[in-house]
């Protein structure tokens, strides 16, 4: 009986102190850590079309199409299939592909989640965090290139 009362007292203590640990999600945007891996952002300016990201991707999420002169034409990434392992960012020699902190994305069908290079370019930064700078400060950051947030080209 003492044990039962003790457990009741424990829960009552929590009820009375009034503190909560849940957040009201849409109105309170959660803090994500600088290393958090969200949707990709791609810069055609930087890309040298070396296809390393395509090769390293564990589940063939990245698809690159080049013309016969090895000029890049398409860069498609299925963000619904991606497992967010960050290997593409890790192998990229020129930081042309980054994983932003942005985790808020939707699509009505799974085809909506196939992003081409334009869509990948316009992925917004989450809370203005530049992932590259926060992850590895000694490498050049993306934010600050060009005038606006997205306008790095």
């Amino acid at each position: 009986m003492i044990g039962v009362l003790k457990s009741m007292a424990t829960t009552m203590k929590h009820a009375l102190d009034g503190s909560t640990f849940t957040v009201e999600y849409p109105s309170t945007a959660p803090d994500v850590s600088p290393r958090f891996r969200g949707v990709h952002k791609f810069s055609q300016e930087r890309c040298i079309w070396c296809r390393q990201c395509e090769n390293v991707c564990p589940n063939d999420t990245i698809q690159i199409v080049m013309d016969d002169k090895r000029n890049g034409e398409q860069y498609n990434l299925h963000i619904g299939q991606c497992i967010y392992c960050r290997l593409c960012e890790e192998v990229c020699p020129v930081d042309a592909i980054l994983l932003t902190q942005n985790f808020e994305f939707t699509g009505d069908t799974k085809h909506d989640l196939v992003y081409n290079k334009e869509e990948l370019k316009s992925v917004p930064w989450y809370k203005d965090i530049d992932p590259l700078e926060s992850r590895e400060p000694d490498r050049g950051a993306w934010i600050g290139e060009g005038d606006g947030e997205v306008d790095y080209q």
Partner: protein
Amino acid sequence: MSTGTESEVEPELTQPASGTDEAELEALLGDRAIAREEHLNAPGFVINPNDVQAVLSDLRDEAGYDHLSCVTAQQYEDRYESIYHLKKFADPTDELSIVVPTTTENPVSQSAEPVFRTADWHEREAYDLIGVEYEGHPDLRRILLPETWQGHPLSKDYDQEKPQLVTLTEHQNPIQPDHREADSDTMFLNIGPHHPATHGVLHVETVLDGETVADVEPDIGYLHRCEEQMCQSGTYRHQIMPYPDRWDYVSAGLLNEWAYARAIEDLADVEVPEYAQVIRTMGAELCRIASHMLALGTFALDVYGEFTATFMYTFRDREVIQDLLEDLTGQRMMFNYFRVGGVAWDLPEPREEFFAQARDFLDELPAKVAEYHDLITGNEIFQTRCIDTGVLEPDVAKSYGCTGPVVRGSGVDYDLRRDDPYGYYDQLDWDVITRDGCDNYARVLCRMEEVEESAKIIEQCLDLLEEWPEDERDVQANVPRTLKPDADTEIYRAVEGAKGELGIYIRSDGTDKPGRFKIRSPCFSNLQALAEMSEGEYIPDLIASLGSLDIVLGEVDR
């Protein structure tokens, strides 16, 4: 409880035990050993398919190999092969591989099930995925794939492109009336695959006599995602590491990654920098706490019913760990933080902030554990529910190959972190928790005390990391861009995951991808013991026992 002797003998046995008693083993096996093989982790004896039971029971009774850790089956160009990975509960570094080859035309081999109960499911899996048949197996059916599946997916002649079309008429009709044994006194009840207490998509076929459980048979495979095959088609260097996170997906990602890291590092002979080992140890123990918190919370759900305070409190504490891990690894659950030869990143900057957060968590932990004891374990109703229910005797647990908190709750002192040391564990001060109760209560207490031990380990790691000289902070060894271990090198390596012994067997075929990648999942072996624990008890005890095993279906089905 602990005999204490293993830990004293252990330092001399850190080498793979190939030298221990090979002459004796050879004498014991006599001419039943038709050839020798050498695996990186253990000596191997090749035996005749008809000698399996005799050899294994001799090895168990006379040489002390009482732990059938894993059964790996694979197909070569000219033969099928089953490998029985044997260990000793008293000393898991003393390993032995029994290799049983069979011809391609007639892949029949004797079953090990009469000797080790755990071989039951392992051999069913081998039959299901590879196609080796086991003579004398009590119930050789498919286990992961549906009954109607055509072919054996990991065998050489399997056509992966061919779609598997099974019409509803060919299949068992799911809505046809089912009056099996209409005149019997028992009731057949499907618990799952959609049921609030099965912790995922598990189907437990139960036969009830009133409220008493007369027969239990777990039916698994609903979450089978071809993890072994996926790893076999990924490169060692990069592409395999993201997947272990998805076996035991709830919290134990880093522990799973370590299983692969350990296997590949030993296979490719990669030396990991000490600094990275300390970070790994800390991260892995954080994962263990998170995983045990979840186990405690869901167990409380099974015993309390509905959304209880315990569940939310454990989630609140797990959330703190997840924040720490997110800062460290960049993801809350699918970490992909380990790399072959180290870890992806050093601690997050500013380091002081990370240390402060981690230490805050550790400082608050004792109060929280005390609160759990007040809330759960001290509660008399909880005690009447859990003490002496779901009893798993140590011998039974060993025979089923149970590991982790399940076997430690049955009083078997077996923890790979201490007995087969890896990482930085052997240089830290901590204890292995065992409990004698053998019941659900013992398993719960075991997990709660392990949380405290993990906290001790993390604390020591934090001390080490804080004082580590700045110019020696190597997080990765220099590993070649492509790893191509020599052809036909074989290794089986296990780590102590949150649920128990998580082992990886890799056979290299000379390319940059594994020839065979086999996962020994602790949940798979532990779940087998469910029938033993719950038959003759009541439905609520069946549910509680299932909760106390702490299975994750992602790891059971892989």
